[in-house]
């Protein structure tokens, strides 16, 4: 791997760190709605009713899947933005190099 003092490699590393941070935070939500609300807290949440169903039951059979769809949508949008940011940073560096 090229050293971090290389500005192009540094830009790539920043992009990678942002990528990992985004993926991790989405995975925290992923675990919270499915394994959290859908399983570990299901008995507690079942005391409440949502759309005519006990809430824990609803999370396990509806809520978790709905959140999954949104998570992947957010991921695709935000990663697209991160990619464009990297591209403009790299373009900036190239212009700086020419000067």
């Amino acid at each position, binding site marked *: 791997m090229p050293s971090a003092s290389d500005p192009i490699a540094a830009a790539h590393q920043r992009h990678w760190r942002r990528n990992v941070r985004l993926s991790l935070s989405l*995975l925290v939500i992923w675990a919270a709605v499915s394994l959290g609300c859908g399983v*570990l807290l299901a*008995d507690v949440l079942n005391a409440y009713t949502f759309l*005519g169903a006990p809430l824990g039951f609803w999370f396990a*059979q509806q809520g*978790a899947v709905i959140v*999954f769809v949104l*998570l992947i949508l957010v991921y*695709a949008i935000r990663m697209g933005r*991160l990619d464009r940011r990297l591209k403009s940073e790299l373009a900036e560096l190239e212009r700086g190099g020419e000067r």
Partner: protein
Amino acid sequence: MTVQQWTFLFVACTFGLYLFVAWRARVRDTGGFYVAGRGVPAIANGIATAADWMSAASFLSMAGIISFLGYAGGVYLMGWTGGFVLLALLLAPYLRKFGHFTVPDFVGDRFESQLARLVALLCALFVSFTYVAGQMRGVGIVFARFLEVDVTVGVMIGMAIVFVYATLGGMKGITYTQVAQYWVLIVAFLIPVVAISWQLTGQPVPQLGMGSELTSSGQRLLTTLNQIHSDLGFTSYTEPFTGSWDKVNVFCTALALMAGTAGLPHVIVRFYTVKNVQAARWSGFWAIFFIAILYLTAPATAAFSRYYVFESLHGKTEQQLPEWFRTWEKTGLVVWLDDGDGEVAYHGEAQADKNEVFRKGSLGAAEFSKIRAQHFEWLSSGGAAGEDCRPALREQGLGGPDRDIMVLAMPEMAGLAAWIIALVAAGGLAAALSTASGLLLVISSSVVHDFYYRMIRPTASDRQRLRLSRIAIGVAVVIAGLFGIYPPGFVAQVVAFAFGLAASSFFPVLVLGIFSVRVGTVPAVLGMVSGIGFTATYILSTVFFGGERWCFGIGPQGIGAVGMAVNFVVAGVLTPLCRGPSEAAREMVAQIRAPEGEDPPPPVAGH
């Protein structure tokens, strides 16, 4: 027109459509054959992925499982879709950037080991064949019930169709056929459940209908179900952690299914077919979007069909028995063994001695008809001759109808029009065929690309490999067909095995390969071997040799979660002690992490 005529019509039309699409998309090189020339648009790839993903199990079995398990059925919904999140976030974009043909390819190149490649290859083959066997059972059920042809003939027709369009068009043909199959299966799944939701609750959106009041009684559907369940000795429909599904098992099974799903080779390979990394991410979104349409509807199908089973069976006399019961009785997937009072009684675990509704399960046809004959003799002679066969079936856990009939029988239960019933049959076939074709391609590319080309004869030309791929699909089709005609009695357990293996082998090794630059050959291979070893030993000993569930009482379905942890821990502990990856492998990791850039050149001989 009768149901059977409608079914013939729909099946003939849809099969013709699939062949036509495949003919339009036929290919001539390995790039087109394996990865559709990487020119599939994100949304089309998303739809195809959804069809590939949603197997006969999703279409025919899942709603049935939820229907019988209630809350605990949610682990399949969460597990299979949750796994897709892992796949889309952690694997798909990077594997697309890696840019070769298969999963064993990545494992072999990243960890620079032919042994790792071979282990991955064997896992891919095992998982794929297990899966294909399940699809063929689905095809067999649909043909046997709706076209009343022999299962053997049905399976052969199905296999012939798959063979033609898979060898003709390879991945390209399969992809576009799957797009067509998605629309067939989703329409077939939605129409009946919307009609039933309207009929039962006056609410056309099934997801809302599930939580609404029944128009007949004014009581909520789920409340009614819970009440029936407690009256007849079943565990509650909505309460979690009943029976063998305690918290540990629900948690582990959900996690194992998630990780296992993310590691399924036939789904991962779909992301190799799009143009670039960006398209891989969007195709992930479109896939889950189209999958969710079915997965969010399945719980409603489950609740409605559960209600209808009690409504149309319990307390009915011989004359009042519905038509759907009579037709399904012929297949042995549901049967009524009366206690002599002339009234059907369907009871759950807590009142099992009163239950009179059973199924064939994995019993042989001859054995099962002997049991029934004995019971009827016992009934007609007033107990003087023959034998009351209910206790024997109860002991084998065969109480209640087979879960696989629920989706197919529900339109009949609700008395919907004949063409809707036929449509559901065509949808079931679409689901089974789309998944089977994807799997057959993975099998053929694993054998020809990973084994023959990368390990045995790296000098093979493109034309030779293409021809071999077509032969390999032919052989795989025959083997899969044999599974369908002579289904092994243990399909269900083997499926648990497939997910367990994928969770404890592929998933950790792929995540480590992408997200760590330190893990080298030895930790990766040993991690994979110990993960698989642990999972396989545990499943074999508990399922096939009646061993104890010594690991926190976790069942065979959930043990993959522990196997995955074993894999991660072993690899993690060994990494600081062993040699790291070479400069070339580090370079490769850096490459797959960068969003832009060209596809790598085709794999070089002797690499």
